[in-house]
């Protein structure tokens, strides 16, 4: 049969004597596949639902959290805000950190002045950009009503959707230069 693999039409597969028996085997098989697919879909849906406890928002802001007593029942949730200046405390030789989080306004470094603040605690290593004033900090954890503190399990850092070269603030540096060690 003359065919052209690049341009010409290729004859389609023809039904053979086996086609009917293959089809009926497929039908019985299909019911099982559909049930299996349904179970997998439900499992995935449940996992997605479980990953967004309480609501479908990825996070609530600090003031939304403070204003809603329903969120204080110990459920796991994410709270986003900015580190309030001069509130970070950690003893030497300890990995327990205590700090306060205020609301974050876009393009404004640090916590918004006068915004309500939330006390939080965290045990572990802090992400590199935790202390950067442009970072928005997202805490995963639950409210500990006994200690009256937000007990953080994980800290995530959201960066501004904006990229700028280091020369903008350090004109002496040449392109490709290593960023100077940041001091906080």
């Amino acid at each position: 049969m003359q065919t052209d693999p690049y341009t010409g039409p290729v004859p389609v597969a023809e039904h053979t004597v086996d086609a009917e028996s293959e089809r009926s085997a497929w039908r019985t098989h299909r019911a099982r596949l559909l049930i299996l697919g349904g179970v997998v879909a439900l499992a995935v849906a449940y996992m997605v639902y479980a990953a967004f406890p309480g609501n479908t928002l990825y996070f609530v802001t600090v003031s939304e959290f403070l204003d809603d007593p329903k969120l204080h029942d110990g459920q796991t949730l994410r709270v986003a805000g900015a580190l309030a200046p001069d509130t970070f405390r950690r003893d030497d030789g300890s990995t327990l950190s205590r700090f306060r989080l205020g609301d974050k306004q876009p393009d404004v470094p640090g916590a918004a002045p006068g915004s309500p603040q939330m006390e939080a605690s965290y045990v572990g290593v802090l992400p590199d950009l935790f202390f950067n004033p442009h970072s928005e900090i997202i805490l995963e954890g639950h409210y500990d009503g006994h200690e009256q503190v937000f007990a953080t399990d994980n800290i995530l850092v959201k960066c501004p959707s904006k990229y700028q070269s280091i020369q903008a603030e350090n004109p002496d540096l040449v392109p490709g230069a290593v960023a100077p060690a940041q001091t906080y």
Partner: protein
Amino acid sequence: MAAIAGRGPTDSTLRVVIRDFRLWVLFATAALTIVDVYLIFVVAPTDQVLGHIQRIFYIHVPISILSFLGFLVCAVAGVGYLIRRGEIWDRVAHAAAEVGVVFVTLALVTGVIWARPVWGVWWTWEPRLTTTLILWLIYVAYLMIRHYAPTPQQGRAWSAVVGIIGFVDVPIVYYSVQWWRSIHPVQVIGPEAADDALEPIMARILIFSLVAMLALFAYLLLERVALRGTEDAVSVIRRQGTYD
């Protein structure tokens, strides 16, 4: 070029032209990629906040955009196949889906690598990441359904339907960072981007990177469409060998 590619005694002129065009696209891809790597690692300025890790941006963003293009080609060719039933439509749709899956996989991998040092986690179930993973699953399902269907004709038609419906997720992925609260940065290029999101030099390198990876995308697509043609020809020969 014909000398490099070699012209067999039965090759048609059109076939040689298509094959030579593929080779030119391959050479262009290689040249553009070498320049692109130089631009990304030497010319591009270091980001003020994120440091060197931000250079992955010049790979991550174009590759994500081109995965959308792959799924667009797949959906359009799928419509073409359902209307015209021509084999070439199915070959293009299948090839575009495969290239799209490769690109969206790389977008997920580069995203995971970038997220760990910057966000502090490899993965989080937030809208942009979750919808992108769903996009990956949809087009992996597209590739799987071709083989699960009882006949090749049904496989082509069913996968075309999956490719068309699955494309609905592409705008959802793109706008997810605006529709929902997200940890992912919003668009830095295109109509939704802020004017000052990128420095001019960064924007220019990003565009260059997009062109270089578009060449790679075009090469992979052309190569895969041609390979599909060969596969179809081989399957015809095999069937003749079995039933003659």
